[in-house]
């Protein structure tokens, strides 16, 4: 409404430019680099936020270069992408601030990575704003390259190995996406989402089914869907704090967005033995149980959080697999909650690990008492992610459960809540250890909590997101976004309607 359509473009261009300009600036004024980085971060976040707000009320279409839909690239944002743009804005800002903010080590030598951070951020916004299938692939590749390097950037043996695994598996995923895309192009001759969505009926059924299989496999791999999730625990746990925050909080959500867009726009009619949605539902439940059960035996806090991400991606898949607006709305609310909570939890885990001197959560003895505010924040975030009512994390699950019972799928509903039981089993011992250690608090080195203010600020989100369910305007917004997701005709009309010269 108040923001012109070009803001979508700026949200992609600005960080990309900043990535390169910052390297130049460092050459001329090394002492000021940190300040410039933070300034760029703030501006990018503001632009992305603006793009998100402008998309909240309806679809926005931008024809880049003035080319029409068949030939050119369109940028399209609608209420569905608005949710994820919010996540990108705040998650990206939190990650960059943690890595380069005042008091962090990133300022001195680690400044070089700022380029990669901004390229990653730009590609995220690209994925969220694009209206073209090939453009999606290009941005995924840019995202992938920067993510692989950032994962290994801390240069420990573990990180390099994890980065390599992410690289190999991610390339396999990209290959699968490319294959799917190729089949769609061969069948329909177009790559624009809206036009393709209208033309999908002309693609032969077998080809469409194969294309959907490849796309789901490829995008699922990028998202950490079981059984393509194997790279995720390694990569997310070995990366440095800021990178883990970005990967677990924002990158997997962007991949989820891509999966949601592609399956609802292009494959709603694929119904052979099972529909795409039923398969996503089944894979979602599988991810849920795998993630939660695997997290239980973990002794490293970051690995535990990474497996928890796998499980929560399962919730999102179940949400869209139910195929009703309430289900999608629940998945969106849960994305918001999980992004905020997981970002903050990785930040907290990183800071507590530094203070305790080890990544094992058993070494966190008594840290909750030494840092009462941050400990309480961690407690609140963990409780929200477990799904305890009345905190924010519960309401996303509640909407998904409502949607499941609406369809009569009671086993799905029970599985969702069983996830709460299973996540208690591994989060609660960590919390108990932080507050009432079994063997007395270790005499640890001093030091203050790194990025404490961001952490505490992020920790207000569980309470904030609880409001989403109760404030009618917000709940209606989520349900409207759900409707948008499930009705390809709305999207097509909005995009092509603006094509009339």
């Amino acid at each position, binding site marked *: 409404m108040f923001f012109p359509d070009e803001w979508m473009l700026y949200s992609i261009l600005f960080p990309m430019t900043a990535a390169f300009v910052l390297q130049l600036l460092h050459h001329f004024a090394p002492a000021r680099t940190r300040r410039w980085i933070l300034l760029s971060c703030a501006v990018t976040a503001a632009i992305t936020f603006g793009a998100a707000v402008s998309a909240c009320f309806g679809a926005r279409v931008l024809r880049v270069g003035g080319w029409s839909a068949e030939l050119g690239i369109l940028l399209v944002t609608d209420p569905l992408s608005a949710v994820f743009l919010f996540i990108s804005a705040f998650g990206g800002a939190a990650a960059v601030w943690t890595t380069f903010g005042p008091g962090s080590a990133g300022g001195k030598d680690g400044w070089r990575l700022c380029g990669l951070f901004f390229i990653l951020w730009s590609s995220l916004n690209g994925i969220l704003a694009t209206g073209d299938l090939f453009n999606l692939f290009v941005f995924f590749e840019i995202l992938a390259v920067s993510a692989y390097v950032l994962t290994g950037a801390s240069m420990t043996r573990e990180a390099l190995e994890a980065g390599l695994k992410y690289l190999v598996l991610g390339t396999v995923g990209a290959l699968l996406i490319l294959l799917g895309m190729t089949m769609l192009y061969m069948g329909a001759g177009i790559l624009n989402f809206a036009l393709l969505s209208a033309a999908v009926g002309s693609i032969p059924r077998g080809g469409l089914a*194969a294309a959907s*299989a*490849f796309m789901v496999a490829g995008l699922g791999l990028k998202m950490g869907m079981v059984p393509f999730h*194997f*790279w995720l625990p390694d990569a997310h746990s070995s990366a440095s704090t800021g990178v883990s925050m970005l990967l677990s909080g924002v990158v997997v959500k962007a991949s989820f967005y891509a999966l949601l867009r592609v399956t609802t726009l292009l494959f709603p009619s694929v119904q052979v033995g099972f529909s795409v949605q039923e*398969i996503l539902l089944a894979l979602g439940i599988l991810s849920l149980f795998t993630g939660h059960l695997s997290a239980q035996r973990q002794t490293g806090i970051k690995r535990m959080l990474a497996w928890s991400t796998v499980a929560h991606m399962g919730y999102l898949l179940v949400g869209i697999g139910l195929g009703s607006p309430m289900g999608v709305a629940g998945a969106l609310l849960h994305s918001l909650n999980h992004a905020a909570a997981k970002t903050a939890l990785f930040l907290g885990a990183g800071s507590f690990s530094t203070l305790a001197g080890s990544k094992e959560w058993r070494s966190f003895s008594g840290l909750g008492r030494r840092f009462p505010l941050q400990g309480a924040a961690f407690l609140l975030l963990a409780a929200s992610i477990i799904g305890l009512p009345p905190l924010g994390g519960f309401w996303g699950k509640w909407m998904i459960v409502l949607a*499941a019972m*609406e369809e009569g799928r009671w086993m799905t*509903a*029970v599985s969702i809540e069983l996830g709460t039981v299973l996540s208690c089993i591994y989060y609660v011992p960590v919390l108990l250890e932080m507050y009432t250690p079994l063997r007395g608090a270790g005499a640890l080195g001093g030091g203050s909590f790194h990025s404490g203010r961001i952490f505490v600020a992020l920790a207000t989100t569980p309470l904030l997101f609880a409001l989403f369910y109760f404030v009618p305007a917000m709940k209606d917004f989520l349900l409207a976004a759900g409707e948008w997701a499930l009705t390809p005709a709305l999207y097509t009309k909005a995009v092509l309607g603006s094509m009339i010269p």
Partner: protein
Amino acid sequence: MISALFVVAPQRVLPALLAGALVGASALYGEGYFGDASERRAFRALLLCFFFPVLGALFSAGWLEFFVFVEVSTVALFLMIARKRRDVALRYLAVQFAGASLLLAGVAGATMAGIPLFVPAPRGLLPFFILGLGVKAALPGLHFWLPEVHGTAPAPVSALLSGFAVKIGVFGLLAVSAHEPSYLLLPAGAFMALWGAFMSLLQQDVKRLLAYSTISQLGYIVAACGAGTSFGVAAALYHTTVHGLLKGMLFFCAGILEKVYGTKNLNELGGAATALPVTFALFLFAAATVIGLPGTPGFASKGLIKGALEAFPLLSFCFLIANVGTAASFFKMGTFAFGGVRKRTRDNIPERLRLMNAGMLFIFAVLAPLALFPGMLPLFLGVRETSFYSAAKCAESIFTAACGAVVLYAYQKRPEFGERLLNRLDGRTERFLRTAGKGSLLMRRMQSGLLRGYLFAAALAALVLMVFFSW
């Protein structure tokens, strides 16, 4: 919005008063029970964290609010137990949340259909409610957590658990049950009563004895719920109140014994009648109430329940037998702990003992009017019962108590007789769950760390997806 969220009605006010009385008594008792000042502070804080959500749950109009408040109160109880035994507390939390999973499905269905509390739920949703609430109410098969948790928690926490937390499950069952006899709840109640009564006879640990006795008395309440009449509902609520209060008193008593003698084992206790006279007197009152001797509130409440179940003579007979078992187990507790040779006390701090006894006296003060005016509470619930003290009823109750004494005498001759078999049966459910939990090992083995394995798995999965999609 407040009026839409909460509803006030007699059947909700009564459990709320019970909660208030128990929380007050526990606060008083806890001052004496916990030796450490920080423990006392934590207990007081957690008591409040428990009390207010519970009130919210009891007065909530809709199922979603009920669910949210019950979950929060479960967390408060978990924290209270975790201060003493972390592993037991974690198991308690896991089991309660697992029950909540099933309950949530029912709550979702009820919310969509717009069904509030105390309106019978449609048939399709009933299993979710019964199973979910049944975990809290310790229905047979879902009760496996109760003896361990109630037996190992600190005494005032056990009082809250046995006295109130399980009653929330029953309250939920009342709120969802139809106005017709439930052929699920009736036999379940009878089975619970018998099982609990005879398992409690076998126990050596005084708190486990009381925990099984809770299961037994819950059986009475569940069966009264299942009767489906408003008389049954009133009987269930009356017995809930009486049992909640007296189980609180009994757990306080067990806590006193634990603190004074340093042990919970009945074989090592003894002679407390002379050492702790006030406690003994209060124990006698409480035991008489559980057994249902005339003149106690338990007599009136059991009489009401038997009246509600008049239409089912077989069940009434089962409850008679269960009563014999209850009598036997409480005679056992009395003779072992309070009678017999006087054992050495550990340390006897008069200050703290006085506070603990004060807690018990508080409950006695609440129960005594119920003994004197048994008709008062049923009238509050809308049921008029005049013939509490008929000759037949008095004779029956004294006779069952006498049978209980005989059973105890016979059992003491050959104590190992049912012990091994019944104890083995009871642990089976818990062991099954423990083995089921080992499934996570398989998952862990698959995450081998080798890239080859990952690629193979991804390729295989892509292939399988292809097959599914093009089937």
